C-alpha cells in the first residue's frame, strides 16, 4: 500500500543523507522524497512516499523516529490531508499544435511557463491523477522532458 509520510527534521547538513541511507540500507522502496525548510528555518519538512505492507511501514516509522535529527514523524495516509505535486514538462510543438496544447493546459489548470520555437513548457501543481491525465493528453505531441517535484503533503488539522 502507498503511504505518505511527513517528517520534521533538523535543518542540518547530512540529515537527508542519513534518511536516504536508512531507506537504502533497509531496502525500503521510496517512490518520492521532497524536502525543504519550513517557516521555522531550523526545521525542514520531508514528504516521503513509500509503498509497503503495514509491517514494513511500522518499521519505517520506528526507524525514522530513532534518528536523533528527526523531530516528528506522521503517517498522513490514515489522516485527512492534502497532497500535491509539481510537474514541469516540455512538449514538442509547432505553430499548428501550439493552440491545442494551450487548450489542454487550460483544461487542466496548467500554466504555460515557457514557449520557444518547437517547444512549449507546461507547469502543473496538482494531484497524481490529474497529473497523469495531463501527461497522457500531451504524450501524443511528444514529451521532450519531464520533471516531478515529488509529492508534498500536509495534514488538514
Amino acid at each position, binding site marked *: 500500500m502507498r503511504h505518505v509520510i511527513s517528517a520534521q*527534521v*533538523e535543518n542540518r547538513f*547530512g540529515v537527508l*543523507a*542519513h534518511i536516504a*541511507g*536508512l531507506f537504502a*540500507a533497509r531496502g525500503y522502496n521510496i517512490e518520492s522524497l521532497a524536502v525543504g525548510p519550513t517557516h521555522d528555518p531550523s526545521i525542514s519538512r520531508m514528504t516521503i512516499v513509500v509503498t509497503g505492507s503495514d*509491517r514494513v511501514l*511500522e*518499521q519505517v516509522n*520506528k*526507524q525514522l*523516529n*530513532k*534518528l*536523533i*535529527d*528527526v*523531530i516528528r514523524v506522521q503517517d498522513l495516509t490514515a489522516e485527512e490531508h492534502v497532497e500535491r505535486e509539481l510537474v514541469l514538462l516540455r512538449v514538442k510543438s509547432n505553430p499548428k499544435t501550439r493552440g491545442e496544447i494551450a487548450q489542454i493546459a487550460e483544461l487542466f489548470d496548467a500554466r504555460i511557463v515557457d514557449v520557444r520555437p518547437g517547444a512549449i513548457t507546461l507547469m502543473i501543481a496538482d494531484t497524481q491523477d490529474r497529473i497523469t491525465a495531463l501527461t497522457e493528453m500531451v504524450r501524443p505531441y511528444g514529451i521532450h522532458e519531464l520533471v516531478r517535484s515529488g509529492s508534498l503533503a500536509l495534514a488538514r488539522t
Partner: protein
Amino acid sequence: MTTETTPKPQHPPLEPATEGQVLSGAEILVQSLMRAGVDVAFGYPGGAIMDTFHFLNRSPIEFILSRHEQGATHMADGYARVTGKAGVVIVTSGPGATNTITGIATANMDSVPLVVITGQVPTTMVGNDAFQEADVVGITRPISKHNYLINDVRDVARVVREAFHIATTGRPGPVVIDFPKDVQQAQTAFHWPESVDIRGYRPDRLEKKISPSHPMVQKAAKAIMRAKRPVLYVGGGAVIAGASEEVTALARRCQIPVTTTLTGLGAFPEDDPLSLQMLGMHGTEYANYAVDQCDTIIAVGARFDDRVTGKIAEFMPQCECVIHIDIDPSSISKNIQVDIPITGDAKACLAALLELVEPTERSEWAEQVLAWKKHHPLREEFGDDEIHPQRVISAIDEIAGPDKITVTDVGQHQMWACHFITHLRPRSWLSSGGLGTMGYGLPAAIGAKVAAPDRAVWCISGDGGIQMNMQEMTTAALNEIAVKVAVLNNQYLGMVRQWQQLFYGRNYSYTCLRRRSICEKVCRDPGSGKCQAYLPNIVAMAEACGWQAQRVERRAGIRDAIQWAEETPGPVLLEFSVHREDNVWPMIPAGQGVKKMMRGMELI
C-alpha cells in the same frame, strides 16, 4: 640576597576551566571530557588530533595508548560493558578513524555506549581529498547511534555533553565526534551546558509512562498469570538496564524458566534450577525445547535475531502470546509479531509487572523442564585423556571463581564458554554477539581489567582470533594490566571448519592455520599429523611482549597452569593444545527449526 624560585613547569597540569574562560577548541574538548566524568580514555595520536593530545597528558584522565585503533575501540567497549559508562576513544583522522570502524560497528550491534573522537582535516580542506582525510561522518552513519562533525568551536562543549547523553541513554550505542584541526585551534569562551535539550531525542518520555496502571503492563500481568507454559527470554537489554534482580524476582515468584541470549548471559543466575541457559543455534537442548513448547513468551531486552529464532515459521509453534519489553520500539514486531508490546526501560517495566503478578505454581511445566534438563545435559564426557576445550573452560570457571569477568573472542571457543562458564552476575560476560567480531577478546579484556582492576579477568580466545589483535599484548604489559588469556589452540579456524565438516563434505578450504604454500590446494588428509608445524609460537610471542606464558599439552597440566596464571602477577597467557576437530553441540543449522537439531556427529 637571592630568592629561590622553582621554575614554572613548561607544560603545567590542567586546572578545571571556569565558566567563560577563553580556551582553544582542543582544550575545551579535554575540559568537557573531565566535566563529563571521564576517568580513562583509549586511543592513538596523529597529525589531525595533536592539538587535543597536547592537553590530554596534562589532564587527570588516564590514557591507555593502544597499538592499533581497533584495539583501542574494543578496549573502550570492554570498559563500557563492565561499568555501564561510556567508553572513550580518541584517534586521528583518516586511517586512525577508519581503523576504529570494526570497533564502532561491534559496539553498535550490542548497544554499547562509546564516545569516539576522531581528528579531522581543517574545515577549509574537508571534501578536498586532503592528506589523511576520510569522510568519517559518512562512513560511521550506518554503524553508530549518532555522529557529529564540529564546524564551530562554540559547539564543542555542547556536542560533547550531548554525545555522552545520547551514548548512554535509551538504547545505548556509539556516538562519533569528528573534530577538524582548525576547530581544535580556534578559541572561544568555555561554557558547559547544564542540561541537554535535543528535540528529536527524548528517551525519558518512554520511561515516565511505565507504571502498574499502564494498559499493556496490566495485559501482560494477566497473560503471565494465565500461562501454563511460560518462558522468560532475556537479552542483553536486561543487562544494560540493570534489570537482573527484577528478572530473577519475576521468574521465581511465577515459577517461569529463564533462557538468555548470548549477550544476556549473566542476567539470570545459572545455578538457579529455573535457568535454561542460552537458547538458539548453539543453545542448550532444554532451552530450545522449552521455547518450542511454550504457550507464552516474555521477551526482555532481546530482539528475536536469526541466531535465536532459526526458521521463523517453525519458531515457538505453540506460543499463543508474545510479550515483548524493549526500550527500542523498532526492535518490537520486527521479526516476530508481538501481542503485548511494552516500550520502555526493562527494569521499570518489570518492576511495574511485579506489582501485579502473584505467586503461581506450575508444577507440571516445572517437572517437564527439569526432566529435559536431566535427560539432555550439556556436559560432555570424553573417554580419552586429550585436552578438550570444554574441560579447560570448566576448569577456569571453577578455579577463577564466581567473581571473575569472562571475555571471549569469536568462534567455537566462544560457544563453549557460553556453555561451560557458570554465568551468575550481569556485566561479567563480554562477547561480541551481534557482529561476531574476531579480535574482540584480548583488547576488550584489557578494557574490562582497567574498569575492574580488583576482579580476575579471563579472556578465552581461539588461535585465529588472538592473532587479530595480538599487538595489544604490549599495551597490557606496559600498562600493567593483569589480564589472563587462555588460547584454545585447535590449529583451525574452528567454527568455520565445523561448518565445512558438516555442510561442505569436510573440504577444509583455508581454515587450517598450519597450511603453507607447499600444501596441496585441496587437503587430501586433514588432521593427519603429517602437516607442517604451527606458526606462530604464541607463547614466545607473549613472552616477547613482556608476558608470562606457558603451553599446556597434557590434560593433567590444565588445572596447575590455570592456578599458576591466577597466582602470577601481571598479564599471563596459557596456550592449550586442544583436540583439533571437536565440534560445538548441540547445533540447529542456520535457517532451520528445532526439529533439525544436531546433537553430535553420529546423528548426521
